[in-house]
């Protein structure tokens, strides 16, 4: 079976790993956003949602393990590609022409991804950790909305989500290009869908810190 391993470590194989894990993470984001929307329903709605998750915790655990490994693969592989791709051009150009032949979303995928990663760590520490390691009668709504009162957290959340939108706008169509779906029948639609998806995610997640910071959730 060494051919499987070798293939996944080829230039095209590494792209495939990025694309598959990327799509998995994009699906997760949809579910995550749907859950987050219950914040707008007020304290009871959100806490009931949290209780529901609490209720099916064994299932959530399995999902978490899968999710964590998907994240690790995406991040590890992305970083490895970034390093190798840097090495493919040891001496750079004195004049950078990339603005003229690429868009900002694809050019900055590694940077936006890295910032989202930093945010992810903080996010896990502040919210996810509380969800898992506090007592059973947890008022996660209050904890969460209080975090959004902290200006730097709200700002960080908002900026990270914005950059995540950039990342997704590139990642969506990029994944399908890697799968080999660049075909004149489907691809124009995929590109539009990707932008719509990125917009929904950005507006959906991004509205939360804005709303709770300025209106305190009241």
């Amino acid at each position, binding site marked *: 079976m*060494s051919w499987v391993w070798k293939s996944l470590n080829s230039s095209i194989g590494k792209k495939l790993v990025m694309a598959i894990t990327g799509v998995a993470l994009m699906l997760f984001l949809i579910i995550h956003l749907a859950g987050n929307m219950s914040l707008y329903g007020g304290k009871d709605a959100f806490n009931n949602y949290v209780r529901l998750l609490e209720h099916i915790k064994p299932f959530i655990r399995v999902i978490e393990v899968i999710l964590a490994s998907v994240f690790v693969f995406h991040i590890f592989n992305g970083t490895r590609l970034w390093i190798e*791709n840097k090495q493919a051009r040891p001496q750079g150009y004195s004049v950078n022409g990339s603005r003229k032949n690429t868009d900002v979303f*694809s050019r900055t995928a590694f940077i936006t991804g890295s910032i989202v990663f930093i945010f992810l760590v903080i996010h896990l520490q502040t919210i996810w950790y509380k969800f898992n390691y506090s007592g059973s009668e947890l008022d996660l709504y209050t904890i969460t909305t209080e975090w959004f009162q902290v200006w730097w957290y709200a700002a960080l959340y908002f900026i990270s989500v914005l950059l995540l939108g950039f990342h997704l706008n590139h990642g969506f169509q990029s994944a399908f290009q890697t799968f080999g779906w660049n*075909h004149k029948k489907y691809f124009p639609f995929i590109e539009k869908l990707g932008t719509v998806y990125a917009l929904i995610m950005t507006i959906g997640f991004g509205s939360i810190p804005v709303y709770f910071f300025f209106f305190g959730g009241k």
Partner: protein
Amino acid sequence: MEHKKINLTLKVWRQQNAQSKGSFTEYKVSVSPDSSFLEMLDDINNDLEKKNLEPITFESDCREGICGTCGLVINGQPHGPIPRIATCQLHMRNFKDGDIIYVEPFRAKAFPIIKDLMVDRSAMDRVMEAGGFISVNTLSVPDGNAIPIPKEIASEAMDAAQCIGCGACVAACKNASAMLFVSAKVSQFALLPQGQPERYKRVESMVKVMDEYGFGSCSNTYACEAECPKGVSVKNIARMNREYFMAKVKSQNVE
């Protein structure tokens, strides 16, 4: 009709050999807008030679955009600012009086600099040797229409076959990836009946050699397509990916 000459400041990359450290040398030129970019460099070289100075080394052959030998990075863009042309077809009328123009070689680990603006692109030849061909018996020329091929397919294959192997895609890519080039070569055969017998072996071995030479991986920025003098489409990269996945699933190769 007489055209006024334009005055330009050229900053040209000069480097003695692969080991030495290069730098820009400035040349002030007054050039006719009708001159091509390479003719301008020829003029500079004539002057340099008259003064007993080392001329600028750069490559060209056909000077009509079909051989892929020329290739300079002009103000950060391979083959210069005008899309869909090779460096040899770039004319000075596209520049304004007083412009500063930076001229650099293609830069990639797989393209070591030989001298000044000349780089060694033989890695691309090695990729071609790995599978960029079809095996046929050398007898009389086969009848052109013996195998019926639908027009759309023939056209798509021709679009891919337009690649002149210049390496601008590698030069443009922030990852120095050769995937547009390799995918064009994979596609031109994968699309046609004549390419079928070696279809999967071809893509497997060409990608393998491409990776060995240290070209980067594609991250779908599409800079290659934007800079390719022949407008080779990134759809070919998608096709190469499909071919590669199918090859891995179907081929007999268990290595």
